[in-house]
C-alpha cells in the first residue's frame, strides 16, 4: 500500500515536555515519524512530508530513513504518492490549509485521514465544495492513533466509519483499506462512527471518560436508589452536558468555572453521594475542593458571556421543519466549520 504521512511530530514536546521515554517507555521518534516507520516496516511504500527539518535531530531522521521511509519537504510531492494520506499536522487552521493544498493532487480513490488535531466530520465539511464537485472519488476518515505512536500504549487505531446519521464520508473499500493498514502494522483497528471518533480517540477522551463515568453514576443512583423515571435522568444529563458545553463555547473554561460556582456545586453534589461505590464522585469533590489558586483567580475575573442554552437535537428537528432538511444540514455544517476550523 502507498501511504503518505504529513508531519513528523513535535519531538521536543514528546521527549522534553512530556518525558515520554521515562513516563511511558518506547523510543523516539514519536508521533507521525513513528507511524511512518511502523508502516514501512510492515512492508508499505511510505512517504513522510515534513517541511521543518529541525523538528527532529539527524539521528532520528536517520532512523526514519533506515526504516525505508522516503522523507520529503513538499506536501504536494507526498500528495501525489499515497492512496492513504494521514495528517499528523498541527492543531488549527494549518491542518485545513495543508489538506486543501493536497486534495487536488492525491491519486484517484485516495482516502485522507485525520489524527489528533481535527474531527473527520469537520474535515469533510471543510473540503465539501471540492469533494462534491471535483473529487467525488476521495474519501475522508480517521487513522487516529489514540495514543502517542512510539509508546507501548499505541496498540490500536480509531478509524472513522459511517456517521451516526448514516452518511458515508469514505467508501467501504477505503475504510477496509485503513483497517488492513492498521492490522498490517500489528495494531487493533476500531471502526467507530466518524462523528464519534474524535471524542473517544483525541486528548478530549479524558473529558469523555470522566463525564461518561458521571453520567453512568447518576444512571445507577437514579435508577436503583432514587428510582426516578429514566426519562428524567436522561433530561437532566442532557441539561447538564448542554449547559457545560454551551458555557465553554461562549465563555471558556474560566467562565464555566465561574458560572458553575464550585463552592455551591460541592454542597449540592455531596448530597448525591448515596452509595459507597461512587468513587468518581468522591474524586470529583476532592478535585473541586482543591482547585488550583490560579484557576480560581482567573475564574473570579472571567466574564460569563451571553449563552443560548439549546437542546441541540430538538433544535435541529425544529430547523428541519422550518427550512427543510438540506438547508438545515447546510446551516449545521457551516456552524460546525465556524466553531472548529479556525
Amino acid at each position, binding site marked *: 500500500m502507498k501511504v503518505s504521512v504529513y508531519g513528523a511530530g513535535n519531538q521536543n514536546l514528546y521527549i522534553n515536555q512530556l518525558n515520554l521515554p521515562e513516563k511511558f517507555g518506547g523510543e523516539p521518534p514519536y508521533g507521525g515519524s513513528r507511524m511512518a516507520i511502523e508502516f514501512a516496516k510492515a512492508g508499505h511504500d511510505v512517504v513522510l512530508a515534513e517541511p521543518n527539518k529541525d523538528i527532529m535531530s539527524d539521528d532520528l531522521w536517520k532512523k526514519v530513513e533506515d526504516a525505508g521511509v522516503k522523507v520529503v519537504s513538499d506536501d504536494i510531492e507526498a500528495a501525489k504518492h499515497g492512496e492513504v494520506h494521514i495528517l499528523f499536522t498541527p492543531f488549527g487552521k494549518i491542518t485545513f490549509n495543508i489538506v486543501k493544498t493536497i486534495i487536488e493532487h492525491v491519486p484517484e480513490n485516495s482516502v485522507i485521514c485525520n489524527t489528533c488535531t481535527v474531527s473527520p466530520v469537520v474535515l469533510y465539511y471543510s473540503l*465539501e*465544495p471540492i469533494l*462534491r*464537485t471535483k473529487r467525488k472519488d476521495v474519501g475522508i476518515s480517521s487513522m487516529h492513533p489514540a495514543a502517542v505512536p512510539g509508546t507501548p500504549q499505541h496498540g490500536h487505531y480509531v478509524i472513522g466509519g459511517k456517521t451516526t446519521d448514516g452518511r458515508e464520508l469514505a467508501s467501504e473499500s477505503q475504510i477496509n483499506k485503513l483497517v488492513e493498514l492498521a492490522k498490517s502494522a500489528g495494531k487493533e483497528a476500531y471502526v467507530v462512527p466518524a462523528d464519534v471518533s474524535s471524542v473517544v480517540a483525541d486528548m478530549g477522551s479524558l473529558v469523555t471518560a470522566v463525564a461518561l463515568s458521571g453520567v453512568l453514576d447518576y444512571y445507577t443512583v437514579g435508577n436503583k436508589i432514587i428510582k426516578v423515571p429514566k426519562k428524567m435522568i436522561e433530561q437532566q444529563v442532557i441539561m447538564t452536558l448542554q449547559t457545560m458545553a454551551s458555557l465553554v463555547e461562549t465563555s471558556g473554561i474560566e467562565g464555566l468555572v465561574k458560572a458553575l460556582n464550585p463552592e455551591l456545586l460541592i454542597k449540592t453534589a455531596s448530597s448525591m453521594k448515596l452509595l459507597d461505590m461512587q468513587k468518581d464522585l468522591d474524586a470529583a469533590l476532592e478535585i473541586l475542593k482543591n482547585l488550583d489558586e490560579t484557576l480560581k483567580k482567573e475564574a473570579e475575573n472571567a466574564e460569563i458571556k451571553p449563552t443560548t442554552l439549546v437542546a441541540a437535537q430538538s433544535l435541529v428537528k425544529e430547523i428541519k*421543519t*422550518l*427550512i*427543510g432538511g*438540506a*438547508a*438545515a*444540514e*447546510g*446551516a449545521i*455544517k*457551516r456552524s460546525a466549520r465556524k466553531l472548529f476550523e479556525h
Partner: protein
Amino acid sequence: MIDRILLELNKTEGIKGSMVVGKDGLVIASQLPGNVDAELVGAMASAAFGAAERTAAEIGMGNLEQTMIEGEHGKTLMVDAGEGILVVLTDAKVNLGLIRITMKRAAEKIKAMF
C-alpha cells in the same frame, strides 16, 4: 459549464448577477457583483428557499417553483434547479416576465448537469 450559463443569464437586461447554490447553501457557481458575499448569500438563499418550500408544502401548494424577495433597490429571484437553486439579483425596475422565462431556460440546462 454552469458559469457559462450564468454569464449568459447576466446579459439579460436588469440582471446584476446570478449564482447556483446547493439546497444546503453550498455555492456551486457564482457570477455575482464583487461587493456581494457569495457564501453568505448562498446560505441565506438556501434558508429562504427552504422556508418557502416548506410553507408551500404545508399549505398544500405543491412543489415550489419560484421565490422572490422584493426590495427597494432590487429583487432576488430563486427558482428550483434540481439539486440546486438558481438565484438571480436584479435592478428594482425590470421586465419580470422576460427574466422569469430566461431563468426557467437556464434552470432546465442546470438541472441536466447534475
